[in-house]
């Protein structure tokens, strides 16, 4: 299935979870926040939150600013 991951369209296995999407990017979840279709998914729910075709997944962290 295809999902939109930080503005790139990527191919993930059917049934992939938020944790799988982070693996795809090569990041550990520490210090990151994930939103799926505009809703925050807490770290504890990464492994049980399944994505579906067309989902938008945004992965964010703190950067220099302000």
């Amino acid at each position: 299935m295809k999902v939109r991951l930080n503005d790139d369209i990527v191919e993930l296995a059917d049934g992939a979870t938020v944790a799988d999407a982070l693996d795809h990017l090569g990041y550990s979840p520490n210090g990151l926040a994930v939103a799926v279709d505009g809703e925050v998914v807490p770290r504890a729910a990464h492994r049980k939150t399944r994505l579906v075709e067309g989902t938008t997944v945004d992965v964010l962290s703190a950067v220099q600013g302000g």
Partner: protein
Amino acid sequence: MDDPLVIADREYSSRLITGTGGSENQAVLERALVASGTELTTVAIRKVDAENHSGVLDVLRRLGIDPLPNTAGCRTAAEAVLTARLAREALGTNWIKLEVHADERTLLPDPVETLDAARQLVHDGFVVLPYTNDDPVLALRLEEAGCAAVMPLGSPIGTGLGIRNPHNIELIVSRAGVPVILDAGVGIASDAALAMELGCAAVLLATAVTRASDPERMATAMRLAVQGGRLAHGAGRIPKRFWAQASSPPR
């Protein structure tokens, strides 16, 4: 002088809050942060990529500085609320510097969206520090909404134009029951000193230090200016007079 800055449940001995934006490299930023003496420093929340992953938080952790995530770049209350929730998830803090900008050209706070977002975030358990216009009425409204501080601008972000309406800042300070933090517009040390002389509880600045030719030196100047302004504010200034008054005895 020694009285701490108290915001919500935290106490800080430094009254200078800094930002991390605009710094060219982290070694320079780190030296400037140390020189500033700051204990609370803003960070932005952005989509990760290979360039911006991690880094700044490691610097803050090493220096024992609390991160203050902001909602910079948000244009609506809804965006700001989502960004605050993402920041809470990423950093494990319920403190948020609320910024909702009306447009890219001025980066002025959108008062309607800011107040709306402040109410939602307070309800959601956040400690909200809103960036706001130098509007005494809006400052009161934000305090009524439950904000832990109000942060009026001196002038638009990054302009270095100083405090354009000192009387409004004094009006805000005179009626506020929460700390007033001068946020944005500081260009040089005297701007920071003036903010404190007007009665502000703290100063928040970034560009004035990070884009100075010598950030470490400017950070030191800002630290001393904030301390000097604070001391002067509490020292009881003389009244301004039209005519001279001799300070030496007549004979």
